């Protein structure tokens, strides 16, 4: 493998990896405030992309994407208020089953609202044939959009959680919900907000990746399983580690695909998932003692 090939696979891995990272951050935001793994996270990504594709025929692209993100945020809010809030004292088993059901309903809703055709958003700049050359590798300008938007999203989230009042309140809820409530934080609203936020960033990720990977109504679960793998790799709840884990996962997948049959693309991430669950369920970056405690 020469340098150009390495750069080619590497860039493709980083592109996919940054999307996995965004999905994983979506998982983490909800997990931190509620302790729930939202199996419908992948569907939020696809809802965003599908809505933007339909709107882009009517309004300019930036407005279409903005509206699509708003739609996803609204959907995230509705999901929390209608379903999750009613099952507040439910066991983990019940919550898993509920979010699983929500994911099916959203997916089937999309199938009936749109259809099973593969669609995609237009390229943000240039067309599908325009390329840039980086280190001898040919890439589409859309790759730069994906990387830029992902980086901007992570930066914005960091600033939001660190410096705004609402962001700090959400972190307080994640830390200790009862204590946060005693301090006068509306914890119920924070849970709703966390669903809206994770749906919103998921939808944004869905829009920027759509020109590259295209979009179909049933792509949610495979994205969700990759996002979850990344979230576990980084340690559930740790958003910064999710970025590193996402890039790692993307690179691993890209280089594995250079050696393997394309039919087994999905299998790479699932094998990683099973390995990490069995060997280090608290993530690559967690201390060994914590791993042992969690696994016991």
């Amino acid at each position, binding site marked *: 493998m020469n340098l150009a090939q390495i750069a080619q696979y590497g860039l493709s891995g980083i592109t996919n990896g940054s999307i996995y990272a965004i999905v994983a951050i979506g998982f983490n935001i909800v997990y931190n405030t509620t302790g729930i*793994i939202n199996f419908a996270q992948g569907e939020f990504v696809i809802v965003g992309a599908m809505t933007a594709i339909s709107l882009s025929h009517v309004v300019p692209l930036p407005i279409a994407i903005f509206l699509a993100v708003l739609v996803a945020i609204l959907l995230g809010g509705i999901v929390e208020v209608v379903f999750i809030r009613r099952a507040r004292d439910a066991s983990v088993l019940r919550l898993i089953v509920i979010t*699983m059901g929500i994911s*099916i309903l959203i997916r089937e809703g999309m199938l009936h609202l749109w259809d099973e055709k593969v669609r995609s958003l237009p390229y943000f700049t240039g067309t599908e044939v325009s390329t840039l050359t980086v280190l001898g590798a040919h890439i589409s300008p859309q790759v730069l959009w994906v990387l830029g938007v992902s980086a901007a999203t992570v930066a914005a989230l960091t600033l939001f959680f660190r410096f705004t009042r609402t962001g700090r309140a959400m972190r307080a809820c994640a830390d200790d919900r009862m204590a946060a409530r005693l301090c006068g934080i509306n914890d119920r609203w924070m849970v709703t907000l966390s669903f809206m936020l994770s749906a919103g960033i998921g939808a944004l990720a869905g829009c920027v990746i759509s020109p590259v990977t295209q979009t179909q109504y049933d792509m949610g679960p495979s994205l969700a399983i990759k996002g979850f793998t990344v979230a576990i790799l980084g340690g559930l709840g740790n958003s910064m580690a999710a970025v590193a884990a996402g890039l790692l996962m993307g690179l691993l997948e890209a280089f594995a695909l250079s050696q393997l049959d394309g039919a087994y693309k999905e299998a790479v991430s699932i094998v990683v998932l099973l390995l990490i669950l069995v060997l280090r369920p608290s993530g690559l970056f967690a201390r060994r003692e914590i791993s042992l405690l969690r696994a016991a």
Partner: protein
Amino acid sequence: MMRLRRYVPVVAGAAVVVALQVVLGATDATYYMTQITMSAYYALVVIGLCLLMGYAGQVSLGHAGFFAIGGYTSAVLTTCNLLAYSDTPLVAWCRSLGLVVARQDLYGASTLSIAPWAAFVVALVAAGLIALLIGMPVIRLKGHYLAMATLGFGLIVYRIVLGAPVFGQADGISNVPPFELACGLEVNGRAPFRVENYYIAWAAVMAAMILAINLVHSRVGRALRSIHQSEEAAHSLGVNTYRYKLSTFIVSAVFAAAGGVLLTHYNGSIGPSEATVMKSIRYVAIVAVGGMGNLWGVLLMGVLLNFLSLRGVFGTYDDAVFGAILIAMMILAPQGLLKMPEFRALSSRFSGRPHG
């Protein structure tokens, strides 16, 4: 006396099965029996899953994988052609034991393949072994981690049957021969065998129910319930929680594989759609509606919902219906439909024990 009382529902169930056949025969609606038979085989999966979810309290989002392992193993073994090897001592020896049988395929060419009963045994053992290997690491996980790990297992099985040429890729395997049982009975989906197969399927279901009921009322069942209520408490009382959970996982996988083998021989084919995650979720939904730890409720709902789905009652909303069922049950009636106040009286009469 108590021991016999637990079989009262089995006798009642058998009576219902016979009554149903009489009614369907009298109203000239025997064609419904085909779907009822198929539903009965799917019910084997949910009976096993009920033991795992309702009694051991562990979730599995990969049971369609075990169903597919059973079905595909049997399909591959009974459709392979060993004619080229017929002179080798091993094949000749297997033939003298009845492990390998000669038959004619669809086009009249003679083939030599593994006997269905041998394939059945191999399929169950394979499913049990895979469940053991997967279960050993995975069953230690809790909650979300276990759900995701079993989901991952199901996805891998799906990818393998979809990608591997030996499993027919997207086409699956067809022309699976009928499964000859003793006394001229055979698992065969063709119309002349309809009534016979209706009873074969229900005999299999009742056998599975008797096994499950005995398991639940045994020392193992008590240990499992204690794990479900409080794993720490059970552990501190000396229950080997890991071993009980693992063996229940294996038992439920074998139940699912048995359903897979029988349905594959009944349909004469199996395809990758049997291994999808949606199928696994469907089984979980049925166990949830039936009331997790209520074997008879789960059996009833399993047969009813699969029957409606196979008849196409839900149309294009088939998957959506199961998704909606999941959410509604978990939010409104986590104890299952039969445990809702309206159904309580009925349910306690049905299962023959009072509810506390």
